Structures are given as C-alpha cells and as structure tokens.
C-alpha cells in the first residue's frame, strides 16, 4: 500500500508523529560527514553547492574533506531549473531523501510507512496556510530538545498570498510551452541538463520561486540554489511542488506529460541524473521512471483541483464576454490577418533598467503593425467559447536580469501612458529572482546571461484595450516588495512584449 504524504497542518498538532520523526531524523543526518551519501549535507549538495557560501554560513569548515571530484561530478549540483526536467528531477530527488529518512526513522523505532509531509501555502480555506509551519520556528521540540528544523539563516515567516495563488499557474494545458518565445508551459521549456536556464515553467515561476525568496529572505538558505536544501523547510516546499504536478496532471484529461523520448529518458548530453535509494545504490531516476507516484510507493492526501476544472481560456473568454455585454468592449474589431500560430515581438524598452529599493518605471514602445494585428484578433468568433481559439495572448519578458542577491521579490504594474497621474495601474504579477547569483556569473556555466522572467499580461491588456490608434506605449513599473538594496546591483537588460496568436 502506498504511503500517504499529508499536508503538515492536516496532521494535527505542531509536533504530531510525522513531524516529530522528521525532526528526529534530520537531527541524525546533520552531524554526519559531508562525504557520507546519507548525510544531510551530501543530500543538500546534490541540489547545488558553493563551498565558500557553505563555509560562510557555518555548514562546512575550510579544512573539511569533500567527496572526490569524480563523485561530485556525478552526484552533486544536479538541480534542474528553468527546464522541462524541473518536476521529474525534483521528484526523484525527494524520493531519495524520503527513503533515506524513512530508513533512519525505522532504525529509531519510528513508523515503517513514514512519508514526507508537504506545506500547502496555497490553501485558501486555511487563513494560516501562508505562514511557515510552527515546527520550523520553535527553538525546541516538544520534548525540550534542540529543534533541528529551525535554522538561523531563515528570515521569512510567511509568504504573500498573491504569490502562491494557483489561478494562473495550473490552468494551462501545455507542459512545455514554446521555448524562447511567449507561451510558457506548466512544466518548463525543453532543455538539456539544466541547473540554471533562461525560461521557466509556470509553477516554477510561482509558487516555487517566491516561496524560496520570501521564506529565505535576504541571505537566507532558501534564497539561493546552492544552500536551499540545507533548510528542512525546502523538502516540504518541494513536496508541495511535486503535489502540484499531480494536481495539474489529474485535473484535466488533456493535461499530459511530454512523450518525447528526450524527456522520458532524461538528459544525456552533459550529465545524466544520478540518484540513489536508502541502500545508497543508484536507481533509475529518469522522468519515465517517476511519472506515477503510486508506482513509486506514495500518494498525496489531496490532489483535488483548486480551480474546479476551469481553464485559462475559459476564464479569459468569460471575462471578455462580460465586458462585451457591459458594452465596455466591442467584438467587431476586425478579421484576423494571420491564420498560422505565431509569436512575434510587439515592442520593447530602449535602455537597461536598474532595480533598487524604490520603484522604477520603463516605457515600452510598440510597433504599429503587430499592435494592429493584436487588436484585430478580438473578433466575435475568437471571443466565443463555442468556437476554437481566442484572441492573441500577450507576454511581458524581463530579460537578462543580473545581480548579486536573489532573494528579491518585485511587483510588476502596467500603466497606460494616457492614464491620469497617480492612477494605480494594472498589476501584471510578481517576479522572484531565485537563482540570480548563479545566473549572473559571467564566467559561470550560465555565462552571465542572467534570468529571464515572463509574465502573461493577457488579462491586463484585455482590460486596458491597447488601441494602436491611441496607445503606442506602455509603462512598466517594477516595485520591490522585499529588502532590495542598491548594492545588490540588480539590472534588467531589456523589457519586451510579445504576442502569441493561433491558439
């Protein structure tokens, strides 16, 4: 019978049996040598590793022996981000961790069916859902012993409800989306082995990234890929991300994992995944091996659909129809000029933007022809739920983001240039810069290309009615919501807007 991973608060009191054994097992793994495959630190380094950062944070001494280079090359620094391997690699990784922990728990007399709990910060039925679970904050455990779940370098105690809202995260049917173009999928773009990439999937962008940044805070373990898995809350966060993959996959029969052999068989061009079981022996851990949680021996207590079956397209068309009925919008704007699915640049700003403690605005200029094409896509037939398709979708790209601190979270707000002064604008979403440090290293594997953040602004553009006869620009305001400092030197290389047609 499959083990059941349960929501941490649904388990009852703070120090319920599952959490009690989790803390005890973490306490056993933490003092082990970093060279031991079943040690806390070895498991964390499998995600990512930075010797200097670990020394600075007290997780490594300068003279400590590390595993040999060949072993590091095989097992350490495997985390998959901005990639279609994001979901499956983290699932296999969690399973390695859970199996090792369960072995430790059993050896201490704990339950043989112990399963990792998850933290569902998106649960709107529970007002406390966005708060870090109490067991991770208390100084001591219920028996008075030191609490191994509490870490000094964790500075956030809750996450912003808007950042963990799932409405725009799991409503799409595409897993992959279109690489390097607007239209991103739930699972992430097609990549090779990808510790750090450019474009990320919808769930990775949120709630994954902001939970890392907001829980870790400035300088916190969770805010950096190289230290995140040293924090015990990491594993509950990723169990929830793993659960969201199941929620998405089961909420609609049209939602399918990729069937491409390159996804199923995992990466081979640079490195392959190397994960092991409680016996520390390698086991098959490619996407094809981890598609079914039941086959892996576990299930979640709740994979019900928080969106009640609705789709992104339906939500959009419903909103548009309501505006047509209220005569805010006319549906006879034109006839589509382009029948083939296509994406194209609508416009961009013309200078690099520096982010700091205050908000900054940058103006995006549009080209007339593609803006006209976008406007002409609002036809009666495309705005009808009875016929296939929908008017063009619009995406805002913040590209080539570099900087020295990845804990920052920013709101992005759009303003029409003809809007009255002081008007609030339309919120396009938020961005979290998890992984920024690694992506910014010019001599690193990422070659300094930085992060790319994509926000679908279709709803905002629908609401603003970008008429090419009147509006040829759009002001993008980026407002810091966390402790962002000038010395973080965060720069956005370019802001572009793309349209996607033919859906």
């Amino acid at each position, binding site marked *: 019978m499959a083990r059941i991973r349960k929501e941490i608060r649904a388990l009852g009191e703070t120090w319920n049996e599952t959490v009690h054994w989790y803390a005890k097992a973490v306490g056993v793994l933490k003092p082990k040598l970093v060279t031991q495959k079943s040690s806390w630190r070895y498991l964390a380094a499998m995600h990512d590793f930075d010797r200097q950062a670990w020394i600075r944070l007290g997780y490594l001494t300068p003279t400590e022996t590390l595993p040999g280079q060949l072993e590091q090359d095989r097992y350490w620094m495997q985390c998959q981000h901005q990639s279609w391997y994001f979901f499956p690699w983290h699932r296999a990784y969690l399973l390695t961790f859970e199996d090792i922990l369960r072995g430790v728990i059993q050896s201490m007399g704990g339950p043989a069916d112990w399963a990792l709990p998850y933290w569902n910060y998106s649960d709107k039925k529970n007002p406390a859902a966005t708060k870090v679970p109490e067991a991770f904050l208390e100084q001591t455990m219920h028996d008075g012993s030191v609490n191994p779940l509490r870490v000094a370098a964790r500075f956030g105690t809750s996450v912003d409800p808007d950042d963990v809202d799932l409405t725009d995260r799991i409503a799409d049917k595409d897993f992959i989306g279109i690489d390097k173009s607007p239209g991103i999928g739930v699972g992430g773009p097609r990549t090779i082995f990808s510790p750090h990439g450019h474009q990320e999937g919808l769930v990775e962008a949120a709630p994954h990234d902001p939970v890392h940044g907001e829980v870790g805070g400035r300088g916190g373990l969770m805010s950096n890929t190289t230290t995140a898995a040293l924090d015990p809350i990491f594993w509950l966060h990723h169990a929830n991300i793993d659960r969201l993959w199941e929620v998405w996959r089961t909420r609609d029969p049209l939602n399918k994992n990729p069937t491409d052999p390159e996804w199923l068989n995992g990466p081979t*061009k640079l*490195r392959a995944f190397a994960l092991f079981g409680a016996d520390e022996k390698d086991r098959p851990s490619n996407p094809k091996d981890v598609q079914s949680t039941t086959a892996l021996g576990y299930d979640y207590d709740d994979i019900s659909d928080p969106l009640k079956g609705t789709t992104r397209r339906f939500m959009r068309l419903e909103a548009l129809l309501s505006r047509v009925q209220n005569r805010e919008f006319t549906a006879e704007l034109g006839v589509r000029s382009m029948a083939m699915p296509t994406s*194209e*640049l609508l416009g961009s700003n013309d200078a690099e933007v520096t982010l700091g403690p205050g908000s900054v605005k940058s103006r995006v200029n549009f080209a007339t022809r593609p803006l006209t094409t976008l406007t002409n896509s609002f036809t009666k037939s495309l705005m009808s739920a009875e016929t296939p398709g929908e008017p063009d979708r619009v995406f805002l790209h913040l590209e080539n983001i570099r900087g020295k601190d990845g804990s920052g979270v920013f709101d992005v707000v759009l303003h029409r240039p003809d809007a009255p002064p002081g008007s609030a604008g339309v919120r396009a979403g938020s961005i979290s810069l998890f992984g920024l440090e690694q992506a910014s290293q010019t*001599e690193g*594997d990422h*070659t300094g290309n930085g992060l790319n953040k994509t926000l679908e602004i279709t709803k905002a553009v629908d609401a603003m009615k970008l008429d090419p006869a009147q509006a040829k620009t759009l002001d993008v305001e980026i407002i810091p919501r966390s402790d962002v400092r000038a010395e973080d030197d965060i720069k956005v*290389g370019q802001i572009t807007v793309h349209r996607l047609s033919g859906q």
Partner: protein
Amino acid sequence: MIVAFAVLREMASGRAWPIIAFSSAAWALVIGLDHSVLVPSLCSPNSTANWIGSSAFVAVISINDLAAQTFSWFVMLLAMMTPLIWQQLTHVWDRSLAERRVRAVLLFLGGYFGVWMIAMAILALLVVALRLAAASGIVAFVIGLGLFVLWQMTPIKARFLKRCHRLRPLPAFGLSADLASFRYGVEISGSCVVTCWAIMLLPFTSDVAHIPMMGTATLLMLSERYLETRDFCLPTPTQIYGCLFRNRKMSDV
C-alpha cells in the same frame, strides 16, 4: 562526437532546419569547388618548403588568387560556423520585429563573418609562416596539432568558450537595433575566434585531408560548444579527451 550528431539532428528536426540546410549547401559548394582554390598552393609542400624570408610571403601572395582564396574562406566559414551560432541566430530572430528580422540576422552575420574573415587572413599568415619554417607539410600539420592541443587546455580558451553562449538584449527600433545586431555578431565572433582559432589550424595545415579535417573540426567545435564547460584543467592520461573537450561525463560522448 555523438553530442555533435545529436545537436545536428535536433537542429535539423526543429526550427533550426534552415540553418542546417544553409550549412549543407555551403558544404556542397566546398566539396564542389576546386581543391586548389580551397587549399592555397602555399599549403602545398612543393611550393613553399624551401622558401625563406619575407620574399617568400610576397611569392606566396603572388601565386595565389586572393579573390578566390577569400571566397573559399567565406564558403568554408559558412559551412563550418553557421551550426555553431544557431542559438544566437534564433535569439536575434525572436527578439526582432517581424519586419526587421531578415535585416537583423544579416547584420548579425555581417559582424560575425567580418571578424572571422579578418581572423582567417591572420591565420593564413600564421600557416604560411609555419609552412616556411617546417621541413614538410606533415611537420607543419603536427605543429598545428600541437598548438591545438595546448590551446584546448588553457583557461583563456575555456573562458571564451563560455562567452560564445552570450545572449544580449537587442533594441527593437531604429539605428540602435541595427547597430546592436551588428555589434552582437562582432562580439560572438570575437569569442568564437579566440575559442576556435587553433582548431582551424587543422584543416589549414592538412593538404590531402583538407575537407575531412574541416568536417572533423566542425564536429569537435559543435561537441565542445554544447558540452558543459569547465575551467582550466590538467589531464591525467585517462582524462585527456574529457579535458580537451571539457565534458563532465565522458560516457556521454
């Protein structure tokens, strides 16, 4: 090497197929061209082995058809380099307004191949010097091979290989868009030249095996371009291939 074929297959089956088609056409032209045009007579062992001094350079220039040489270098670069820059070409394409895409790509290519053509001229002079100094064509090739192996292991080479993957912001409008595309081509080409100049010595210094060596060099460049790059490494005997081509997991290649 398997990586190179996998990359080519992926490109040919995806949206990069025009790049593969273009490169294939250039390869057909390379093969179809008279070999003496592609491989300058200065590379022939009989013509230069006994020449010494600056007069030899003059003689070399005088017996070669510079226009034909320039054309052959250009075709050679088109064949070998276009698959290497598909990431940048798609970046330029995607980040340009539809009406400007062709112009932006041409400007990028202008900057890219402009720098490479200058580099080819300098490389040709280096090859002439090699051939004048070496006792035979074989010796010149061995020296070229030695330079290639040494360069592969330097930290400078590793650093510039990473820079070949740079993706730059590109303005959308006006002269600044044109200049940015051209400048981007120059920047990427500069990194490519520093990364690949030594490997280009192999086809330049090989006479009869010129075209197979071009093919080998292309596959090697593709392999290392899409393998994970490492910093400077000194190989043990069992790690030589991995160190030369910067891969982390040798079983994959």
